[in-house]
């Protein structure tokens, strides 16, 4: 289950907000203004089941999210949901991948310690024997220019 964030996990000065997560209900979010840079040359990879529960994470994912592998496997992917991300982005993500198509977008993700990191994410359905069995997301380093654009655009989408 996805739990409220705990004050003792947070590094630095934080703000508090409650997010309503799809099917899961409210989650207390504690977030800071501390950015973690994207690890150069790496990809952050995860897979989920068809409901968006995490089934696999690579090492870079664990490192960047701040959670342990045990905490991540089985957790809903919205464990990374940052309050600055407009809900419309994730609606578009799910609308696209459930149609069997590839989705791409710039995402601000929340770390266990309250910090954040920007990624360029690509999500695709995993098709095995003609059936969608889950989804894979691969994140790469976004260019500074597109992150700047999103920092201007996203607040207007609420």
């Amino acid at each position: 289950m996805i739990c409220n964030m705990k004050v003792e996990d947070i590094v630095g000065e934080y703000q508090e907000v409650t997010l309503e997560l799809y099917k899961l209900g409210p989650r207390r979010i504690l977030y800071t203004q501390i950015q973690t840079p994207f690890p150069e040359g790496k990809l952050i990879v995860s897979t989920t089941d068809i409901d968006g529960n995490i089934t696999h994470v690579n090492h870079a994912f664990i490192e960047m999210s701040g959670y342990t592998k045990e905490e991540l496997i089985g957790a809903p992917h919205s464990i990374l949901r940052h309050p600055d991300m407009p809900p419309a982005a994730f609606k578009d993500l799910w609308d696209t991948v459930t149609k069997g198509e590839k989705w791409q977008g710039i995402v601000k993700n929340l770390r266990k310690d309250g910090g954040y990191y920007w990624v360029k994410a690509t999500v695709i359905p995993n098709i095995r024997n003609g059936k969608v069995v889950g989804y894979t997301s691969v994140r790469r380093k976004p260019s500074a220019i597109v992150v700047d654009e999103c920092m201007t655009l996203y607040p207007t989408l609420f």
Partner: protein
Amino acid sequence: MSYMFTVSPDFSPDRLSGWYIFNTWMQRQLGVDIHLELYDDFCAQRVATFSNKIDLIYANPFDAAMLVREKGFLPLVKPTDLLDEVLIAVSENSPAQTIDDLKANSKIAMTEDPNVNMIGMMLLESANLNNSNIEKNVYDSYILVAKNLLRGHDDAGVFLAGAFDDLSNMVKKQLKVLLRSEIDEIHHSLMIGPKLVARRDEIKELLLGMDKTEKGHGVLESLGFKSWTIVDDEEMEFMIDLMDTLST
């Protein structure tokens, strides 16, 4: 019945004889005729695969998708601890210290390797470089990519990391690596086509035991491999999905 074997054209020229030795070993072990056909470029090889000429292939990850999804190929093994990583390098005299220092309209040297170029472009994208704002110069080999950096013709080069590591020390000393990928999940694989699928388990066993016999060990050495590691269907599907996310 005879079979056709081919190797992704990105193998190092030093390994040419190794692949012939490997082919001879395979024929002896399996008791069948296998013809090794090497193609000069990626396009010629893909055409051969498309017309169902190939039964056994040492495939790059880029082609693996087409082989599995369209041609019914299945993975056997990959070389142990050998990953396809990519790096971006410049001449040691270049003012660039990171890829962010590479500017629009840069001249980027590369080979024809679709796999390496896709990852290379993905790395460059974070510096806001893309197909529309760079000049791509394509060369026949990584040695030529290096030479054109050294003579100042190109601003940066895209290399298969393994091929860069194999350049002479003299050349490497004059180059500066700006970024090396650490993807960890992308690799070449030995794969079989529909005509050989019935013998898949047997062939896998043979390959996995190869490093344990003196003869087999010698053959592997001529390819520069330690041993083979199994690639199961899901690992291959995962890699294909991952490549798919990188293709745009």
